């Protein structure tokens, strides 16, 4: 080798040694041949101390079966393989090293498994290239969290924690189109608090809010995980029941009615008792839209009110439409 090439070779080595990317070269028996400064700094071992040692002994956190499968396929096919932090947070567990700005207990890593061919074209070594992507990972997780929180906020009613009207109607629309396809029974319960204005006028708005919260809480306790509860208006609530025929929905409606009737809300030393009126409607193929189902349940609710409140009414599909 000429001198000038030797110079270049030294530069190259120095660059590889000091770059902020980890490089480990292993042979086909998973023994370390060499690693660069990045790995030396984070592992605390000089390359001269580890040459010839098993990678698995040096880094017991590596899942051996997985790693062997990955490396063997890289060697067999002669094509690089990758890991990304979303799927595997790290290959080598390096503890966080930035006490001021670091928030993570360990370094997130993206890695490349690069096949190295010898002069005969045989893959005799594998280079593991390790990128520190902690900052990217943290930012992206924070963003996802924030988006998730925003989505949650945009879907829930602040006072009750139930779904708000907009999002609940989206759910109903989806259930409606699913019904068109599969015709699984779907029912809807709509109810409101009887004489709510009187509660507000007598005990104040905060008492009214407490009553609304209590009704929401009772609803949450009574329904199944698959039922979709929402606050439809001021004192009006809705429960969408997928895979539930009308008789099942009526049972739930009656249970709700009784639970509310029996509960007492205490506000400012005063015990407040109240009742709800409910309307139930089952989705049929005659329903032209999801709004039609709401109308049917609403008209059943109207009849509960007319019939003296604190009762459930099932919408009768044989009745002419309003």
């Amino acid at each position: 080798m000429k001198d000038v090439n030797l110079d270049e070779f030294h530069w190259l080595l120095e660059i590889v040694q000091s770059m902020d990317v980890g490089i480990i070269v292993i042979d086909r028996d998973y023994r370390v041949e060499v690693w660069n400064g990045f790995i030396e700094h984070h592992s605390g071992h000089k390359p001269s101390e580890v040459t010839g040692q098993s990678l698995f002994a040096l880094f017991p956190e590596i899942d051996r079966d997985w790693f062997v499968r990955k490396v063997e396929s890289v060697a067999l096919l002669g094509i690089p393989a990758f890991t990304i932090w979303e799927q595997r947070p790290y290959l080598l567990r390096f503890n966080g090293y930035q006490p001021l700005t670091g928030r993570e207990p360990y370094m997130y890593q993206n890695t490349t498994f690069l096949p190295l061919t010898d002069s005969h074209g045989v893959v005799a070594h594998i280079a593991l290239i390790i990128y520190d992507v902690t900052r990217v990972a943290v930012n992206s997780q924070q963003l996802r969290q924030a988006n998730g929180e925003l989505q949650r906020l945009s879907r829930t009613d602040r006072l009750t924690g139930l779904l708000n009207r907009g999002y609940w109607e989206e759910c109903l629309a989806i259930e409606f189109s699913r019904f068109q396809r599969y015709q699984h029974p779907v029912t809807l319960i709509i109810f409101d608090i009887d004489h709510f204005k009187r509660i507000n006028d007598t005990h104040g708005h905060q008492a009214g809010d407490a009553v609304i919260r209590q009704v929401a809480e009772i609803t949450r306790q009574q329904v199944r995980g698959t039922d979709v509860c929402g606050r439809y208006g001021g004192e009006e609530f809705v429960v969408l029941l997928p895979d539930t025929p009308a008789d099942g929905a009526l049972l739930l409606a009656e249970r709700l009615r009784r639970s509310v009737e029996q509960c007492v809300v205490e506000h400012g030393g005063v015990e407040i008792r109240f009742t709800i009126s409910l309307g139930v409607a089952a989705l049929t193929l005659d329903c032209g839209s999801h709004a039609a189902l709401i109308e049917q349940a609403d008209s059943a609710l109207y009849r509960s009110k007319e019939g003296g409140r604190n009762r459930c009414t099932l919408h009768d599909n044989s009745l002419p439409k309003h």
Partner: protein
Amino acid sequence: MDELAVLVCDDSLMARKQLIRAFPEGWPISLRQASNGLECLKTLRAEPADLLFLDLTMPEMDGYQVLEALHRLNIDVPTIVVSGDVQDAALDRVMALGALDFLHKPVDPEELCASLRRHGFYLKPQASVLTPRLDGGPVSLRDAFRELTNVAMGRAGALLGRVLGVFVELPVPNVNMLEAGELHMALADARNGQQVTAICQGYIGEGIAGEALLLFHDSDLNDITGLLGREVSSDEERLEVLLDLASILIGACLKGLFEQWSGQLAIGHPVLLGQGEAIEELIRDSVRWKRTLAVEISYSLEGLRTHFDLLLLFTEDSLPRLAEKISYLMGDEA
């Protein structure tokens, strides 16, 4: 010695040119061409040939079907298959269908010569004879690129077949100049209204850059993990299977492509797209180019419904360099 009647059948003008250019010197032949299987049969029925060079992956009627038809129609013509499909099973199948030999694309002149000698079609150059060369006009960038892709995807398909232990059916790749608006449509098309997961990898080599997008239909995932014989229970494990397949398909295809012009390339880390969201929506806002080269390859696994759609999208800036590489590959003819 009489002239040997040779018929070359391939849908790509570039492939025919490459093959004919590899013909040995001083070979006394008369040359005919066909650009798909149907045309090949028609030509042979009109006038028999002494030797047929046959591609496998063709529109209208592929090479396997031609071999079957020749047998059925009692047309006896010695056939050398020339294909980018490097799966062992492809070799076994064409030999079982009566082919004489199987050469891999791009054809190596020495290998071709050895095969011709072995089967007695060529002994030594005849001084007074000029091997006929093709004059089919210039090859379009699209045709040339389709042929390069054909060879590259054959290599990727063979690796995939080896890993999954199945025969991979190779399609005719779709190579198109795509307007930005059409990308959206192409993606929606590939998605076919189903849930997909997509893995994206950027690549760059000698100023030729782009992104590869591999689409998996979520409903196919069980088939794939079943073939791999892997226990897959968590999302992370499922993702890992997809990443492994993506590095094989994308890595091998790009390597096969760049190797043909002896180019080096670097492939970036995979990026996961979609996961429930419509990918075309994700991409819609990010398109800054007007018109670029897009390659679509749809691999199918024999006997399964499973298929993978691979899309290679080159940057607009890469096109002049690509054209340069291709014209270099084609020598003076392009």
